[in-house]
């Protein structure tokens, strides 16, 4: 039965079905059914050691578990690295007097986020990297405007002409809305609007775009800037 038609095996003939010895799986149960019927007995696999390993892994992961109040999920943004190592407790909540850390290097706080991404690049093996989308500016992860892909600058039509070309109009509008929301929230909590904003910018963002974003934030009432950077390991 193992010898099948030799014409089938070379692949040029049309499919002739499975060879007979593959059609029927060997049936072991038949033998046992002849005698006294027993429940099908699977050989016991010891998974205790596996459980041990998995538990250890879980404990290790739980120990290294950490979350960020803000998350960078966009692959087109590469944050710059910094040697800023915040003193534990330099977050805003822990500092009861509300002052900043003296060296200007604090922990992450949760507040309005302005994001300046880099161009979205697709890398294929053996090909030159291909730019898929131009850099964008986003407020709280809602895209607000796209930058000019060729010059990496804000497009001229997005500038507010009255400001001498420093204020980015769509960003200002989006920030005004974000400010209104924040003010309502602050009112509910009986606090004052603090004007904090986090700038998440790609490390290749030109200084011109960065300062335009800062000026626009200031114009819209967000004057307490923080730059998000990656901590040293």
């Amino acid at each position, binding site marked *: 039965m193992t010898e099948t038609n030799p014409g089938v095996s070379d692949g040029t003939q049309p499919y002739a079905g499975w060879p007979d010895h593959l059609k029927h799986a060997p049936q072991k149960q038949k033998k046992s059914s002849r005698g006294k019927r027993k429940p099908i007995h699977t050989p016991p696999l010891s*998974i205790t050691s*596996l*459980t041990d390993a*998995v*538990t250890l*892994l*879980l404990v290790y*992961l*739980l120990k*290294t*578990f*950490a*979350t*960020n109040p*803000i*998350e*960078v999920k966009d692959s087109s943004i590469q944050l*710059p*690295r*910094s*040697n*800023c*190592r*915040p003193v534990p407790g330099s977050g805003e909540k822990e500092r009861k007097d509300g*002052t*900043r*850390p*003296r*060296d*200007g*290097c*604090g*922990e*992450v*706080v949760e507040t309005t986020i302005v994001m300046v991404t880099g161009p979205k690049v697709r*890398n294929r093996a053996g090909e*030159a990297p291909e730019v898929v989308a131009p850099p964008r500016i986003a407020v709280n992860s809602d895209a607000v405007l796209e930058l000019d892909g060729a010059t990496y600058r804000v497009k001229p039509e997005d500038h507010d002409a009255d400001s*001498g070309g420093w204020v980015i109009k769509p960003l200002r509008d989006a920030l005004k809305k974000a400010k209104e929301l924040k003010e309502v929230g602050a009112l509910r909590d009986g606090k004052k609007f603090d004007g904090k904003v*986090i700038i998440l910018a*790609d*490390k*290749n*963002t*030109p*200084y*011109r775009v*960065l*300062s335009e974003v*800062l*000026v626009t934030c*200031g114009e819209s009432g967000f*004057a*307490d*800037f*923080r*730059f*998000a*950077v*990656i*901590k040293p390991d």
Partner: protein
Amino acid sequence: MAKKPSERRHQDEHNDEPLDLDVTPFLNIMFMLILSILAMTAWTQLAMLNVQAPQIGGGDGGGGGDAPPDGLSQLNLTVFVLPDGFNVGASGATLDGNSEGRTGQPLIVKTLKQTNELVNEAIGCAGVDQRTKDSLRIPTGADETRRKAAVAALSAACPRYADEYTYDYARLQQKLIEVKKTFPTEESMIVSADGNTPYEVIIRIMDASRKTADGNLLFPAVAFAAGVVG
């Protein structure tokens, strides 16, 4: 001890299968937990750098509207980031002119990149072959033509690494330490940069100006001048 045949059979059946706890569902839960924890963990740890509001119109803002919260700024220490180096100025004028560099050169000119820095860039660049990467490992001065060719190949493949020179942050920090000695109470600094300067350079300047290696504060309160220097 001898047992009755019926008893013996009874016991044998029990010994056949020792009492075993079914740990499979437990294991399933473990795997799910591991997956969810892996997905939720933040692998890059972030920090925040505080900055002051920018002043429109160049580095000679003269205090502007809101003074920095810590300390009165009298000095207006400004770091200008030029395409070919740094200049350090105060109250609108450049500190000790061009005494160190040639005329028309910035105070702190760019230095050659470290070999490993170039190699790292080559690893991040897709269009560079192994031979170029090896050539980049040649120390400066050994086989200058081959090295230069490799650098040229790197900048041709990835234009953002077009420069074999890098800003000299160590010398900038030395300069700032000197300034700090003369003005110990001063804590604020203004950064004014060329429009094309990458954000990363700005962060590196803030790193250099925050603290010395032994933890003494230099000029941690950094503000930005929106004006573009020439």
